[in-house]
């Protein structure tokens, strides 16, 4: 009896052990799955690339907004342009002409401190008529005397002498300044 009972007794005792093993196995798989999920969600770089996230970030995107340059640097660069555009105007402000067709002492000087050739136009302030226009005067050169382009009658004429900086390559006017002068025609 003992021998016949033993297997029966043994078989009844093995069932709980099998269930326990299966339960432990399932729990272990669940724990592993949870750990894997947590690891993936915490890693950060993987998630955005997955098509399921719905957005693909551009690798060229960097931190920041519109670049704002240093104001002092901007002002310094602007100051250089001002220096380049400075013009020195120099002439006799009371030129005298013996008559309307003779030469007068204009004494227009393009000083050596200038950067550009100059063209000088003399315009009557009362009528706006241009009575003289020079050709380009190179830096360091002068026009001592010249005839007017208009045969003026005897008298004194208040005029504006306009000095233009000229691009030496293109002849383009780069900027100008003026001086009030009095043109006198004696006869």
């Amino acid at each position, binding site marked *: 009896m003992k021998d016949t009972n033993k297997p029966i007794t043994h078989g009844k005792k093995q069932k709980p052990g099998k269930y326990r093993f299966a339960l432990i196995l399932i729990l272990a798989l669940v724990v592993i799955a949870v750990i894997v999920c947590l690891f993936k969600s915490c890693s950060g770089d993987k998630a955005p690339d997955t098509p399921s996230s719905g957005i693909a970030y551009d690798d060229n995107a960097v931190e920041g907004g519109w670049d704002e340059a240093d104001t002092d640097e901007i002002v310094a660069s602007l100051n250089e342009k*001002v220096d380049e555009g400075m013009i020195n105007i120099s002439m006799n402000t009371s030129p005298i002409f013996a008559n309307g067709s003779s030469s007068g002492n204009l004494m227009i000087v393009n000083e050596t401190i200038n950067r550009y050739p100059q063209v000088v136009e003399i315009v009557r302030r009362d009528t706006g008529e241009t009575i003289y226009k020079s050709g380009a005067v190179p830096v360091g050169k002068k026009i001592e005397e010249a005839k007017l382009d208009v045969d003026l009658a005897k008298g004194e004429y208040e005029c504006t002498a306009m000095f233009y900086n000229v691009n030496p390559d293109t002849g383009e006017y780069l900027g100008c300044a003026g001086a009030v002068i009095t043109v006198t025609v004696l006869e």
Partner: protein
Amino acid sequence: MKKFLALALVLCMCVCMSVTAFATEIDTSGGSGSTPVSLTSTSDGTTGGDPTGTAMNVTVPTALPMTMSQTGDVTTADNCRIINNSYGAVRVKSVEITAADGWSLTAFGDKTTLAREKVDSNKLGFAIRIGGGAQSATDASNSNTQALISDPVAGCYMTGAGDATANSVSIDYAAIVTPLSSAVTAATVANVVFIIEWDTAA
């Protein structure tokens, strides 16, 4: 040596005597005479030279550059000056601004005043202050040309070059510009012309 000293003394006597000889004759006690002091101004400083007045020599800016940020803030240069290199005093007679092709002048003010303007409407508001004087600014009266200064005002006056403390004046300028849809580089939006004249006593 004695001969040389004697000759020098003779020369001194001649000079002294000659002054007496050129003076107006005064033959009564307490009488007076006048001696004309004549002046000739010529191009080379000689009595026979070409008659001219004092030469004007002034350095003036012809470029007033500025930049505009993405948010419409305009930055300008801070070294603009007019420098008088002449012997005589000068002043700024007038300052005129003319809009460049494709641009127009508008009233200067805070940049927010342009908030209702269309992008690329190419409008410029401009203001200038010479020698720390009053600010002169564009208004809405004329979109093409405006006189910022039409007669000399406080701040426009410069001494002759002999007084280095007052022979130049600073030029401060500011601007507002309507928004741009595309970039521009060194584009001329306006031209400002300074006219200089002698600071005469009359």
